C-alpha cells in the first residue's frame, strides 16, 4: 500500500498543534534552511518538485510562483486558500486541525521564496475549530520569533463556496461580494489590491517544507512522473471506513475504496464514484482500476479535482443525485454570468420535473442543451462544474434517466437512499411561501 504521509506525518502519534512537539519532529528546520537560501533557489526547488496544486486545478506551484511580476514597486502577497468547500472535501480542515505549524512553516518558506512580507490565509468561515487551532499556533510561532518580518493574517470567510475560486477569494478579501474577476490580468500580475499575488491551497503550501528539506528532485520521484507526491484523499459516502488518507498519487481507485476504505457497507453493490468532489464527473465500477493521479483520472474522462472520493451504492437514484448536486450549484452561483445564473436554475427545474416523472422526452434533450450552453461560457469554472457533472450523470446513467420518463415517476419508488433530500435552495423557496415538496 503506497501510504506515505507528508502533510499529516506524525499527527497520529503526537499532538502537533503544540509548537514543541512539531519542533521535536524537525519542524521549522526547513524554514531555517530556506532563509539561508536565496529566494530564487526556493522557486527552483518548487519547479524541480513538480508539486501540482492540491486545490483542484493541479497547476504546478513553482510555475505559478515564477509568473509573479517583478519590479512593480508594489508589495507581493501570498494568499493561502483555506476556503475548503468543495462537496466531499475535508482534507484542509484536518491538516489545519492536526498540523497547523506545517502550514505556517509552508507559508513562511513560500513568502521568503516570493519575497513577500504579507500572508493572508482565507479560512472558511464555518471552520471555527480550525480557526481556533490556527490562531493559537500562529501566536506560538510569533512568540518564538519564527515570523521574522512577515505578517500572517487569518481572514475568515462567511459562507460562500465561490470564494474558493481564486479571483472571487481576492474580491472577498478586499471586502466585496465574492464574484470572480475576468482574466487576464492573472493574480500573478494583478491580484490582491492590484499587486502581484500567489494563491495556493492549504495542502500545497503545507507540502513546501518537505520539498525544501529533502529537495525538489526527491519529491518529484514520489509516485507518477506527471503527478508526483502525496495527496490527502477525503473518502466519504457509502463506504465502511470514511476519512482522510494521505497516499501517493497514482493509488488505484479500487485500493482506496476497498482495501483502505473497507468497501461498501452491508454487502451492497457499488454503483458510482465521484473521484474529486461534486464538481468532478462521475465514474462507474468498471473504472475501478483507474490510478488516482491528475493525468490518469483525466484519461478516464473525469478529474482528480480535490481528491474527494464520494462512494455511491446501488440504493441511490442518479436523477435525485444530479438534482441535489445541481441545487448546490444553483445556490452557490454568484449571479454574475447569465449562463451560470440562469442555467443552474433551469437545470434544477428540469431535473425536478424528471424526478417527479413529469418530464417529456424533449426535456431530457433540453437539459443537455442547457448544459451545452453553459460549458465554456462563464467567467469562472463554477458554470462548467455545474453543467459538466449533469452531462455525465445523464450520459452514463441514461437508461435510469429514461426510465423516469417512460415510467412516469422515479423507478426507485421512494426507496432511494436520497429520497426527499432537502436542499438549502428549497429553504429559500419555503421562506417565500412556495411549494417545496412533491
Amino acid at each position, binding site marked *: 500500500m503506497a501510504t506515505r504521509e507528508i502533510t499529516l506525518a506524525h499527527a497520529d502519534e503526537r499532538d502537533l498543534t503544540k509548537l514543541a512537539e512539531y519542533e521535536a519532529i524537525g519542524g521549522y528546520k526547513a524554514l531555517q534552511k530556506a532563509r539561508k537560501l536565496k529566494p530564487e533557489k526556493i522557486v527552483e526547488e518548487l519547479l524541480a518538485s513538480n508539486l501540482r496544486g492540491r486545490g483542484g486545478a493541479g497547476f504546478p506551484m513553482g510555475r505559478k510562483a515564477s509568473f509573479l511580476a517583478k519590479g512593480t514597486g508594489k508589495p507581493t502577497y501570498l494568499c493561502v486558500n483555506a476556503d475548503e468547500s468543495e462537496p466531499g472535501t475535508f482534507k484542509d480542515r484536518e491538516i489545519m486541525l492536526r498540523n497547523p505549524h506545517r502550514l505556517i512553516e509552508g507559508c513562511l518558506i513560500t513568502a521568503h521564496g516570493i519575497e513577500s512580507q504579507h500572508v493572508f490565509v482565507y479560512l472558511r468561515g464555518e471552520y471555527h475549530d480550525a480557526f481556533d487551532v490556527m490562531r493559537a499556533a500562529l501566536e506560538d510561532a510569533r512568540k518564538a520569533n519564527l515570523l521574522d518580518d512577515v505578517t500572517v493574517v487569518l481572514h475568515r470567510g462567511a459562507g460562500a463556496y465561490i470564494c474558493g475560486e481564486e479571483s472571487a477569494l481576492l474580491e472577498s478579501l478586499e471586502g466585496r461580494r465574492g464574484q470572480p474577476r475576468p482574466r487576464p490580468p492573472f493574480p500573478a500580475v494583478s491580484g490582491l489590491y492590484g499587486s502581484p499575488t500567489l494563491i495556493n491551497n492549504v495542502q500545497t503550501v503545507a507540502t513546501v517544507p518537505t520539498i525544501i528539506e529533502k529537495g525538489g528532485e526527491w519529491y518529484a520521484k514520489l509516485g507518477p512522473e506527471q503527478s508526483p507526491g502525496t495527496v490527502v484523499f477525503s473518502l466519504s459516502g457509502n463506504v465502511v471506513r470514511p476519512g482522510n488518507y494521505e497516499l501517493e498519487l497514482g493509488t488505484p481507485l479500487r485500493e482506496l475504496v476497498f482495501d483502505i476504505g473497507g468497501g461498501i457497507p452491508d454487502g451492497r453493490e457499488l454503483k458510482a464514484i465521484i473521484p474529486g468532489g461534486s464538481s468532478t464527473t462521475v465514474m462507474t465500477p468498471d473504472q475501478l482500476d483507474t490510478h488516482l493521479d491528475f493525468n490518469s483520472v483525466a484519461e478516464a474522462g473525469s478529474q482528480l479535482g480535490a481528491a474527494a472520493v464520494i462512494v455511491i451504492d446501488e440504493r441511490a437514484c442518479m436523477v435525485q443525485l444530479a438534482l441535489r448536486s445541481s441545487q448546490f450549484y444553483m445556490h452557490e452561483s454568484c449571479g454574475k454570468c447569465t449562463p451560470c445564473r440562469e442555467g443552474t436554475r433551469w437545470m434544477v427545474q428540469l431535473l425536478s420535473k424528471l424526478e417527479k416523472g413529469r418530464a417529456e422526452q424533449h426535456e431530457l434533450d433540453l437539459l443537455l442543451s442547457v448544459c451545452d450552453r453553459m460549458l465554456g461560457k462563464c467567467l469562472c469554472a463554477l458554470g462548467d462544474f455545474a453543467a459538466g457533472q449533469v452531462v455525465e450523470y445523464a450520459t452514463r446513467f441514461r437508461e435510469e434517466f429514461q426510465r423516469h420518463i417512460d415510467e412516469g415517476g422515479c423507478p426507485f419508488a421512494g426507496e432511494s437512499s436520497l429520497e426527499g433530500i432537502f436542499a438549502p435552495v428549497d429553504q429559500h423557496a*419555503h421562506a417565500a411561501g412556495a411549494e417545496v415538496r412533491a
Partner: protein
Amino acid sequence: MTQPAGELAGEIRKAAAQYPDSRSAVLPALRLAQERHGGWLPPEALREVGDALGLTPAYCQAVASFYDMFHLQPVGRHLVEVCTNLSCALVGAQQVLEAFERELGIEPGETTDDGGFTLRAIECAGGCGKAVVVSVDERYREPVRPEDVPAIVEELRGGD
C-alpha cells in the same frame, strides 16, 4: 446582547488595522456586529459597521446578503444546521433533518415560536468523513444519527 456602539467600533477598527485597505475588514466587522446583535444583522448593525469603516449601510447590506453565515432576519437563540449535501445525504441526512423537524415542531428555514431555535439545511460543511454533520451554534457535532437528536435538543433547551 447589544453592547455600546463605541465598543464595537473599536473592535472593528482593530480588525481593520490588519489590512492595507480598511474595506477588507467588512467581513470580520459584520461577524463582530452579528455576534453583538443576537446572531443577526438588524439595520443598526449595518449602520455601525458602515460608520466604523467609512462605508454606506447599503454597501454593508449588499456584502452581507451574499454570504450564508450573515443573517438579515432574526434567528433563534440556537442555530441548528444540518448538512444535506451529497456525502451526508447518502448516509441519512434527510432522516436527521426530519428528526430535528419533529423534535422542534418546525420546518427548515423556520424559528420556533419561543425564539429558542432556528433550523436550517446547509451545503457541504466539510465534515464528510463523519457524516451526518450538524452545526449547532456554529460548532460541529459529527457524526449525528437520528436517534441522537432528542438528546441534542434537550441539552440545548437545558442550557437556556
